[in-house]
């Protein structure tokens, strides 16, 4: 029995990791600049843009207030448009990414706002251009917080990826639902839960380790 289960479990774990890290990567690519802009577009700040601040803020909040399973179903037409299908592991990356972007944006915004205003003033005094303030000061100083936040995002996405299993995405959630629940296989269900716990622990430990390495504030 284990000889048939193990390959399926391994395959499902890889699918989950693929979905999570692909959506984390795309979500960061879009959420990072968005978060920096959210943190720096206020009045008197680096990239002052009150209209952006007033429109993007509510959009980000709105996306975050939709329960993920509803979001995943609601954007199926958009997913079809993008990937050609709404079923499968690659299709699941679309709703996962859409959910990740506002999450990451708020986390980056928070981490960037934590940077001491004195450092921004010092950068200006040294003749930094606005983009240099971001790349040379804000992002390096916010890095430990950003890594913590992305770790949190990854863990949340692992949970979400199990949910998209319910709408035909593959991965550990799909395995748990189809084998564990629908075929009454408590042993499969247990194996899925244990694997999820191990994956989450590993991601958390890796994130903590990287954040500690990046943090030079307490040596």
């Amino acid at each position, binding site marked *: 029995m284990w000889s048939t289960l193990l390959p399926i479990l391994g395959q499902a774990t890889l699918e989950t990791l693929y979905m999570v890290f692909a959506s984390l990567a795309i979500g960061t690519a879009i959420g990072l600049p968005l978060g920096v802009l959210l943190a720096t577009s206020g009045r008197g700040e680096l990239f002052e843009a009150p209209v952006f601040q007033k429109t993007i803020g509510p959009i980000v909040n709105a996306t975050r207030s939709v329960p993920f399973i509803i979001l995943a179903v609601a954007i199926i037409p958009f997913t079809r448009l993008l990937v050609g299908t709404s079923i499968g592991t690659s299709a699941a990356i679309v709703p996962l990414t859409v959910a990740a972007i506002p999450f990451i944006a708020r986390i980056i915004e928070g981490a960037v706002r934590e940077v001491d205003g004195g450092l921004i003033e010092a950068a200006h005094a040294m003749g930094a251009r606005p983009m240099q303030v971001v790349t040379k*000061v804000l992002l390096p100083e916010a890095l430990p917080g950003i890594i913590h936040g992305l770790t949190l995002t990854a863990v949340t996405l692992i949970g979400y990826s199990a949910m998209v299993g319910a709408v035909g995405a593959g991965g550990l959630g799909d395995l748990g639902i189809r084998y564990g629940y629908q075929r009454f296989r408590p042993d499969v269900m247990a194996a899925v839960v244990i694997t999820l716990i191990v994956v989450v622990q590993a991601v958390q430990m890796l994130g903590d380790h990287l954040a500690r390495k990046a943090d030079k504030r307490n040596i």
Partner: protein
Amino acid sequence: MIRLTDLHKTYPARRGSPEHVALRGIDLDIAAGEIVGVIGRSGAGKSTLIRCINLLEMPTSGSVIVDGTDVTKLSKRDLPLFRRQLGMVFQHFNLLSSRTVYDNIALPLELAGASKTEIAAAIDPLLPLVGLEDKRDRYPAELSGGQKQRVGIARALSSNPKVVLCDEVTSALDPETTRQILALLRDINKRLGLTMVVITHEMAVVKQLCDRVAVMDGGVIVEQGAVEGIFANPQHPTTQSLLADEFLDFKPGVAANADQSASTSIGQEG
């Protein structure tokens, strides 16, 4: 080197706070190579004044001439280029926690697009100048306050500026460290012939470091002149009270004694 003419700065009213007038007509000339102190109590406008020199604050009216150019007329694109000609040292050091001592000092050069060899050539002589040869690869969290300020000073010097602005640079330091940092600044001024503008609320800093002093109160300069003259014969009540804070036995007319009591009373300050 620096000429401020009829400088005004008003912060417009915002939700919850009324309009605030920080500077009401400042005229100040600073010659090349001299150290000018600007002293005043909190809220006197001295921080705004020093930030108007490198335009961290844009004055509401008046002109700021630095090295022959009215810098208030510079475009947004040219402003960073101008600021790279000035160094600034801060009360709370403002070092990047994510960078080593060396990389912190290198930052102004990196911003200006200098190559790795140019950066090394600029920093290698600076480290012994500020006494940090052995701390080169340490992070700010591993340094004492005085060492952090030495990094701040080296960073302000790395882009080879003509002017260094010092904003309450010793206010977060203990008396002994304060003395060392002031001696270092004095030494740098002598060696490199730099012009320095020093903001402080302590007369002891003016006495040890400055050639000339301007006393501020309520957004105006109430008195200015050579340091010896001001200490010997303070005219304005604000000056007299600032001196009285520093030298407990100071009374107008017995200023000659203030000089001798200075060294002892500085020690009691902290």
